[in-house]
């Protein structure tokens, strides 16, 4: 696995590789099963969970409906608080802004708070091209970065790795990135965490520039919020002289009180904890305390495109909890890399097509089909994103985008089905051929179906024929002629 999602194959092909990896399958089934159970337990503790979901969805939906006003307000309040606000239309603009700030301070390295949005724009790679080293400080992100690997989960990016693999990565890669791992490193989780802590501490104390994303941005107070489990993010947010926060425009909420349902929904949905251990908030610059220069980059990168999608816009409510990944039977078996994006699983299957648009990339177009539409994702989503409905809508958009091209066999088959299902007489005619069709299929082999599944036996007569022959069973079934 090389450390880029660029040029990934379409989902079915990428999934095949993961399905054949029994270690990966075991790691994933074990990890998602554990988080799933934890989540279910702490969610069951909340009597008004459904009301909370509705409230969380409403907060995000209201903010999205009036996004422009909230963003302008956010810019005003942040500026008044002493922060500098930048606007970025796409990844290239955002990366250039962050690189310019780092260069202004002659920084050769930056420390990073775990952030999905900076991965989405490929910030680390862009900074590396400018000669700036970006260090991930979240434990799991550190494992991925040191291993020259790709994240495979929103919350637990190294979920596909077990502790023996992590020990190997630390032993062989830490030295080149800074403080080496101790010679007697074992694969005990506490020992591995201690090694990471020693390694990262040097970087926290040395770096002049910190880079973060934000879980939420409050318009009325100009406050950014990061929730985390380890406290490493807080180190990055408070120790460097300069802080740059890259924030997707969908992160804004109107008022401080509106954080209430969101901060209650997020930890239970994501880590299965009642509350996350660290919640950091910052509002611009406070003289003599924390970073003395604060920049906020407000990023679009496809979000206005998603916002314009009547059905799909609800995906922008996502608070990146990853509950949908942990319950998804497809994700559990294929892992995150198969989705070819930093946003894997059910939410990734709708978010990528929404942000990037469909009809021009086979990999993106394959994602809305990477689901059996079982609906487990919608059931657990804390902000009630109807992922199955969006998947179906995205599929329709994929099909529509290809309507003018050379029709695929599938499109021809669907046209045929439309004709047959338009009249029962046509269907009845076809049923006489069903037996022949299935027999032939059995002989020739519909490879995709019969690879590991038998076909059912064909009945002697269809239901329709039985109904006609027996008048719906009113005439005696046996010997009635």
């Amino acid at each position, binding site marked *: 696995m090389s450390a880029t999602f660029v040029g990934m194959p379409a989902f079915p092909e990428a*999934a095949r590789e993961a399905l054949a990896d029994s270690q990966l399958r075991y790691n994933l089934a074990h990890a998602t099963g554990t988080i799933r159970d934890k989540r279910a337990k702490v969610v069951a503790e909340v009597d008004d969970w459904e009301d909370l979901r509705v409230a969380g969805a409403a907060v995000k939906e209201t903010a999205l409906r009036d996004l422009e006003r909230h963003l302008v307000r956010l810019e005003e309040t942040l500026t008044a608080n002493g922060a500098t606000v930048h606007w970025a239309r796409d990844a290239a603009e955002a990366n250039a802004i962050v690189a310019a700030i780092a260069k202004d301070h002659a920084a050769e390295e930056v420390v990073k708070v775990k952030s999905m949005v900076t991965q989405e724009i490929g910030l680390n790679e862009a900074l590396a091209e400018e000669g700036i080293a970006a260090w991930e400080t979240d434990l799991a992100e550190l494992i991925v970065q040191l291993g020259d690997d790709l994240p495979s989960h929103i919350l637990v990016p190294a979920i596909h790795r077990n502790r023996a693999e992590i020990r190997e990565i630390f032993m062989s890669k830490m030295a080149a990135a800074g403080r080496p791992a101790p010679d007697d490193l074992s694969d005990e989780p506490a020992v591995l965490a201690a090694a990471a802590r020693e390694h990262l501490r040097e970087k926290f104390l040395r770096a002049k520039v910190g880079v973060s994303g934000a879980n939420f941005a409050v318009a009325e107070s100009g406050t950014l919020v990061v929730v985390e489990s380890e406290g490493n993010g807080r180190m990055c947010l408070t120790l460097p002289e300069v802080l740059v926060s890259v924030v997707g425009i969908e992160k804004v909420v109107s008022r401080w009180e509106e954080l209430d349902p969101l901060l209650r929904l997020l930890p239970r949905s994501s880590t299965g904890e009642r509350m996350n251990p660290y919640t950091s908030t910052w509002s611009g610059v406070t003289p003599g305390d924390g970073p003395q220069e604060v920049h906020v980059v407000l990023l679009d990168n496809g979000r206005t495109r998603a916002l314009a999608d009547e059905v799909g816009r609800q995906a922008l409510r996502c608070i990146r909890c990853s509950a949908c990944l942990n319950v998804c039977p497809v994700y559990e078996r294929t892992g995150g890399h198969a989705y070819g994006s930093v946003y894997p699983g059910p939410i990734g299957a709708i978010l990528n097509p929404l942000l990037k648009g469909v009809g021009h990339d086979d990999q993106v177009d394959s994602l809305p089909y*990477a689901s059996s539409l079982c609906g487990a994702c919608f059931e657990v989503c804390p902000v009630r994103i109807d992922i199955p409905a969006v998947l179906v809508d995205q599929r329709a958009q994929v099909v529509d985008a290809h309507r003018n091209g050379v029709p695929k066999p599938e499109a021809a088959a669907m046209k045929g089905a439309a004709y047959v*299902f338009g009249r029962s007489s046509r269907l009845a005619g076809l049923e006489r051929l069903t037996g022949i069709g299935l027999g032939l299929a059995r002989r020739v082999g519909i490879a995709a179906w019969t690879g590991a599944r038998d*076909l059912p036996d064909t009945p002697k007569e269809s239901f329709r024929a039985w109904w006609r022959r027996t008048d719906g069973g009113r005439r005696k079934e046996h010997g009635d002629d």
Partner: protein
Amino acid sequence: MRVALMVTCINEALYPRTGQAVVRLLRRLGVEVDFPQAQTCCGQPMVNTGYLDEAVPAVRTFVEAFAGYDAVVSPSGSCTGSARHQHSIVARRSGDADLEAAVADLAPKVYELSEFLVDVLGVTDVGAYYPHRVTYHPTCHSLRMLGVGDRPRRLLESVRGLTLVDLPGADQCCGFGGTFAVKNADTSIAMGADKARHIKETGAEMVVAGDNSCLTHIGGVLSRQRSGVRPVHLAEILASTEATVDEAAEVDAGADAEGAAR
């Protein structure tokens, strides 16, 4: 009450016994069910694959076939879900206001079998007899799209002679998912294999569900593994009585004798 059977295209072509079981069962419960000949398919295969325009004729045929009935009963959670939740999307897209209105009128009258029995007829004991050890797989669309809850379980628990055993990971998808089974065959089969493993763990003779589409997939995997566990539709168990069980035993005995004589 005018009740229509929506048998579904897969049952019509591949599982006529399921449709016959619904007819037998409802008639036993005093409901005369009609089979509108004009019905074809609910259109779900097209909708779920993204071919919304191609689903319009199916939805149009659906509302024409079932208009005027007080209730439409279907032995499929998936197809019921399609009629209830997807037809409106197709109708809206067609731009035909009459079709949209017809869908809005009809959709709430479409019931999955267990819903119809429990909610409309108000019965959980349908007088069935089925002396077998079975495990129940709640299909995703009946579980989540319709929310049938414990209705199928309550119906099964009232069947005399039946032993119902819990299925581990019951609420996990079997991996069928319509065209997903072909488009993402490897993933589908991996999911099906896990489902089959859980089913075998129960030691049940049969796996029962309310959707023959899912059972085709699950049964296909179980059959390939020579597991000996058979897929059975809920309707066939509920329609079964002492008389039909005896009849089936006679048929089996006859087949055995024939085999032995050969």
